[in-house]
């Protein structure tokens, strides 16, 4: 189990290109389908990771690892996500130091972008469905999204405001 946990997150670290959010569908498929964690817990984990400072893949690994195997599991899973990228980048830094602005690599990444965006957007629907969101409860996130996009408010303020709202909500 511990070995599988490490290998799974090595795979996830290896296939993450760009940002970790694109990996949500893959992680969900691997973990929820294997019945390691149920889908409710998975969505809870996602919302917690969203509100932490992060390297997304490493955080989600640590949370899942902890649920499954305690501290040992969380260390193994988190190390799993960094090991492959670390080796690849070190090899590049050591041996290909001179490869300068590489135009086609840049172009390839630009081509990947729409796919990455689609991968990020697709879990939004399944998460919203799993949470059985009412119209009233989608209002706040929509407002937050609009204020981040149009007023350039930093996500950290949104997170702090969310904590405050949750707290105030408990007072009444």
């Amino acid at each position, binding site marked *: 189990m511990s070995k599988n946990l490490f290998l799974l997150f090595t795979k996830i*670290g290896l296939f993450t*290109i760009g940002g970790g959010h694109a990996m949500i569908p893959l992680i969900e498929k691997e973990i929820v389908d294997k019945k390691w964690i149920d889908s409710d817990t998975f969505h809870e984990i996602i919302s917690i990771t*969203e509100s932490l*400072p992060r390297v997304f893949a490493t955080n989600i690994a640590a949370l899942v690892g902890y649920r499954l195997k305690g501290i040992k599991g*969380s260390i193994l899973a988190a190390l799993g996500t960094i090991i492959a*990228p*670390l080796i690849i980048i070190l090899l590049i830094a050591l041996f290909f130091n001179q490869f300068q602005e590489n135009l086609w690599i840049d172009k390839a990444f630009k081509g990947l972008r729409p796919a990455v965006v689609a991968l990020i957007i697709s879990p939004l629907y399944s998460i919203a469905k799993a949470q059985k969101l009412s119209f009233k409860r989608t209002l706040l996130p929509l407002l937050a999204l609009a204020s981040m996009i149009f007023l350039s408010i930093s996500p950290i303020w949104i997170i702090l405001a969310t904590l405050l709202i949750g707290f105030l909500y408990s007072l009444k």
Partner: protein
Amino acid sequence: MIFIQLIWVFLKIGILGFGGGYAMLSLIQNKVVRNHQWMSNKEFTDLVAISQSTPGPIGINTATFVGYKVIENAGYNPFIASIASLFSTIIVCLPAFILILLLSYSIQKFRKNFYFKNILGVLKPMSLALIGYVAYSLITP
């Protein structure tokens, strides 16, 4: 002492790294290029381009690469630079990792806590907005 400075910089980035890998990039650039002038802006952009196009989370890739480059630029040999890059990578993940351990440890106790339940109740739909924002910032370069 450049090693301690480097570790301190990545510790701060790890603590302040809300908003994901791409938000981290501007923090790293700010510290490494502007404040400390450990590398030129061109070196940094090259390095980010490579980090983006190799597998792995962008925050990890950039931390590894920057850690290596800074120490190499300071005139140390590749072995020491590799060790420095290993430390930069681990340090950048460490603050969030410790937070997660504390949180996971206490979550079992807190799960039935009234405040915690309400906060999580608001946080859950809000995570949709935060993920949506990541998608948006990828569409607009």
